[in-house]
């Protein structure tokens, strides 16, 4: 507590003395956990996941110290604007609407979204007809939320959750018929679940671009162009020297 207090006092002092609040050798990165396998906590409370490992690798490459700041998803962009952290690396899909608010790095990962339902389901595909009257689960404010709301909001009952955990809980409780998730997240939370059997319904979905964007990117405040460029270069290096593939292999099945 004391440390936290002195830290916040320090940051206050830094903010007061210079227009540039960011201390150059420490970069704070906002992340929303848990969102397996992209970012989550190990049983002993350590942050881990694809984003975390890749982010740390990039910071090491840039020779800067990075600190992860945990922030709920629906406040994650306002938190960046409010300077609670300098960047977001939290499976954030690049799209035009967000581009109005933030500056994105080059995409570092492109995940497909997919429908997941219990194996016992009679659904074989997700269409307006087959989803009629179903309870669909999505995480609030995600691109999946936007997609489902616009495509199926009129025929199905869309339930929005603040965290993926709550949604999985309601899926296990049979409150939801089907959920629409990033494939990697569905893979680790549902397909590998011990409690019930789940399966993917239909194809992976990455179109239309209007919803699914160009993949995940780090987000920065618009004026922090240099910082974004540094991360882009670090990513380029990691892709070339194989570190990127190592990290990817740690968290994803071949797909």
């Amino acid at each position, binding site marked *: 507590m004391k440390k936290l207090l002195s830290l916040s006092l320090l940051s206050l002092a830094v903010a007061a003395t210079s227009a540039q609040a960011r201390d150059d050798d420490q970069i704070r990165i906002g992340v929303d956990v848990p969102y397996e396998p992209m970012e989550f906590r190990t049983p002993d409370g350590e942050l881990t996941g694809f984003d975390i490992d890749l982010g740390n690798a990039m910071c090491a490459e840039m020779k800067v110290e990075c600190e992860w700041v945990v922030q709920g998803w629906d406040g994650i962009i*306002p938190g960046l604007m409010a300077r609670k952290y300098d960047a977001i690396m939290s499976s954030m899909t690049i799209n035009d609407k967000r581009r109005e608010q933030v500056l994105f790095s080059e995409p570092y990962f492109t995940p497909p979204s997919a429908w997941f339902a219990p194996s016992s389901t009679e659904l074989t595909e997700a269409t307006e007809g087959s989803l009629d009257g179903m309870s669909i689960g999505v995480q609030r*404010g995600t691109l999946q939320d*936007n997609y489902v709301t616009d495509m199926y909001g009129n025929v199905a009952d869309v*339930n929005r*959750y603040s965290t993926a955990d709550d949604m999985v809980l309601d899926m296990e*409780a049979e409150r939801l018929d089907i959920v629409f998730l990033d494939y990697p997240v569905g893979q680790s939370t549902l397909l590998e679940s011990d409690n019930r059997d789940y399966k993917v319904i239909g194809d992976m979905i990455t179109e239309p671009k209007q919803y699914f964007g160009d993949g995940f990117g780090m987000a920065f405040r618009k004026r922090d162009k240099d910082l974004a460029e540094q991360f882009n270069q670090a990513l380029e290096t990691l892709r070339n020297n194989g570190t990127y593939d190592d990290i990817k292999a740690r968290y994803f099945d071949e797909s």
Partner: protein
Amino acid sequence: MQALLDWLDGLLANNSIFTLQTLSFYGEGLTTTVQLVFLSLIIGLIMAVPLAIGRSSRHGLIKWPIFAYTYVFRGTPLLVQLYLIYYGVVFVEGVQESWLWPLIKDPFMPALVAFTLNTAAYTTEIFRGAIKATPKGEIEAARAYGMSPTLALRRIVLPSAFRRALPAYGNEVIFMLHASAIASVVTLMDLTGAARFVYARFYAPFDAFLFVAAIYLCLTFAILYFFRFLEKKLLAHLKPMT
């Protein structure tokens, strides 16, 4: 004036937030909030009257269980109660197969149950205080007229207790309206849920929440007005004569 109108016109033309879709979300949210609050208040009120009478009873066997209930529900946050009732109940063995499941499955029922039990606990205590504050002389007079305790309760104690409880109860109604803002954590699309949806979609906290705050203010104003009217009517005999 013309400048103001032009400004308003420009504001509405350039906004991508308050479209037909988001306004319909707010509309849906308003319906859910009003339904939820109204139903829980009515049921809570009906529950609270016998509970308050029991709570004022001299018999420990009646009094203490009711005290335990009001203590638990007033002593824990409503959010915790809602979580327990919505998420907790599904861990009860076999609940998915029971006849109750269609009711519990939908978030409305669990939220209604949590809100009702909560407001009933508070209302019980409000009424108990009012019953307790009945002037002794009134009860003695009723007894002197030969009324039985039940009759005295019905004719003398309860009517005057309700009048005394009215201002405090009006507060409870407003608190309940505001407490209902947590319904969106269990996926109910209430007013706050609609605001959170708009906020998350457009990253526009001010627009989304100021708009919803204005709606809550209007609702609160209606409640205040209604209770002022009731008080005027029911407490007229207590007003100083002019």
